[in-house]
């Protein structure tokens, strides 16, 4: 048997890495659904778009991975603006059910459209050599890409925290989300702000999609396949809290990973059981308002 300290170290690191993956693929949704309150089940479609753009830039155009990721998230963020203007905007005040119906419709359309362009087979993404393969840390063999994902996760949450809590635009977004009419009467251009926030959410989704390709794989069914996981992270974190989504993802990642290691027969149960337990204890999510 392996040494107990080694096992603990591995469990924590692998759990942390898995949690970061969950956070990174869900963070866009914690903006569009969490902050803006739109039940955006099409989050995965934007994430998938990011994945496909990244794969195309790297594979077909030979762009390096990191610039391709950033460009993909900008492209998808910009491309989401017409969707927001033409579709999402009309439903901000509509009920959640209409939002569900429209976003499910978009998911179906996106799945068929990407199949038409890319075919149904999983896409390959060549990682830069530095991120590919194992590295040894404290005598343990760890995945370089997972270490990278952990770093990206921390960077992301720090950048988002700064943007929303420490900048004027962030303050205006929070004001607009909290009380749209009051913000409007204070002269804030709420329409523009919502468009920008939605583009940010979609751009983040795309970034997550691009980063996830190496781990989750990428097919035109991505948006449907992982929908449950996006929802779990946002709900357990609490609507309107990016910090909540972050903590929730890490907590779920560590619980799920440790559970699977210690008792693989129950592998399918852990993440859902943990979700139920956390929600029963904190119905509004870990950091939810209300």
């Amino acid at each position, binding site marked *: 048997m392996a040494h107990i300290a080694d096992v603990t170290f591995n469990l924590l690191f692998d759990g942390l890495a898995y949690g970061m993956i969950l956070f990174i693929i869900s963070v866009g949704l914690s903006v569009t659904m969490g902050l803006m309150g739109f039940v955006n089940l099409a989050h995965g479609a934007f994430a998938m778009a990011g994945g496909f753009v990244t794969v195309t830039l790297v594979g077909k155009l030979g762009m390096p991975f990191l610039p391709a990721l950033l460009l993909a998230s900008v492209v998808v963020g910009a491309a989401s603006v017409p969707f927001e203007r033409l*579709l999402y905007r*009309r439903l901000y005040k*509509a009920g959640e059910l209409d939002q*569900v*119906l*429209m976003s499910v*419709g978009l998911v179906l*359309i996106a799945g*068929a459209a990407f199949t038409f362009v890319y075919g149904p087979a999983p896409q390959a993404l060549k990682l830069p050599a530095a991120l590919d393969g194992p590295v040894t840390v404290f005598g343990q063999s760890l995945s370089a890409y997972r270490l990278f994902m952990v770093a990206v996760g921390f960077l992301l949450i720090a950048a988002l925290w700064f943007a929303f809590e420490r900048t004027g635009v962030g303050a205006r977004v929070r004001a607009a989300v909290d009380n749209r009419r009051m913000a409007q009467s204070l002269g804030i251009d709420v329409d523009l702000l919502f468009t920008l926030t939605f583009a940010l959410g979609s751009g983040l989704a795309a970034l997550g999609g691009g980063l996830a390709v190496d781990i989750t794989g990428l097919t035109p069914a991505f948006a449907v396949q992982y929908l449950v996981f996006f929802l779990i992270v946002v709900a357990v974190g609490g609507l309107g809290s990016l910090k909540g989504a972050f903590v929730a993802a890490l907590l779920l990642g560590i619980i799920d990973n440790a559970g699977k290691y210690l008792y693989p027969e129950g592998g399918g149960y852990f993440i859902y059981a943990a979700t139920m337990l956390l929600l029963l204890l904190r*119905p509004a999510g870990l950091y939810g308002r209300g």
Partner: protein
Amino acid sequence: MAAADSAVTFLTERHRWHWSEALPWIVAVGCFFVFPGYLAFGAQILIAILFALSLDLILGYAGIVTLGHAAFFGAGAYTAGLLAARLGWSEPLSCLVLGAVAAAALGFVSGWFLLRYAGLTLLMLTLAAAVLLSEFANAQADITGGFDGVTGIEMWPLFGVFNYDLYGHTNYVYALATLFAVFLAARRIVHSPFGQALIGIRENTNRMRAIGSPVHRRLVTVYTISAGMAGIAGALFAETNAFVTLDVLSFQRSAAVLVMLIFGGTGRLYGAFFGAAIYMLLEHNLAKLNPQFWEFGLGAALVLTVLFARRGLLGLVEDFGARFRSAPS
């Protein structure tokens, strides 16, 4: 006085049958004769309607949002399937009843715990509970057959007389009769004082509490009834397909029934008819036209419905009807 009179009239007239309510049933019976080659698929549509109807009772009337309704569909399906395949009891009607009882029991227990919550929390709790049930069914593969499913379901002839045939005649009539019976019950419930109380809860839960309405008890009651109905749909599914696999409990099934109901329109019972029937017809026929890209057409139909028909497809029909009525006068 006139206002009070019209209010009384409104309340008493509302539960009366309107002639237009006969239309779906005429269509359903007509299909039996007009499309004799498509009755197996027709039976699947009727089952989907029944399932959506059960969801409408809680979503449309009591405002309970759930992404775990397949748990009850699956409970009914496995009850009927396992009774027939493992215990040798293959009498179809009693299997329906037992499927309903099992699902209702599950609905009662889970509802008792979960209906203290609402909104997104409830949505995720129902989702997680249903997935856990599905994992449990997978773990018990010795009994359920897991992903490979329950095989060897051979129902006895209906009433001991009617056999199941390749063309699905018996199944269609059986499903239609069951749907009608369940519909009558659902219609009765929503027009009863209990149904009115549910609408009150949907519109303003706190006010209902303030006037002393036992909110939790009422929600659990309707949830139990709805679960039982979903169980009937599931049992019917198992009997008509002679097969049950884990998919009956899946998240996808919960999500699809929710989408079908919203597509048709919630809170009017007939929305389930429009939504489920048109959704399934679109899916089936678009997939025949193009097996690879049919989802595009279905997705477009959903998006267009949201943009042009608030309150679902039934909303369109209602708007059209209202214009038709107001035009001559």
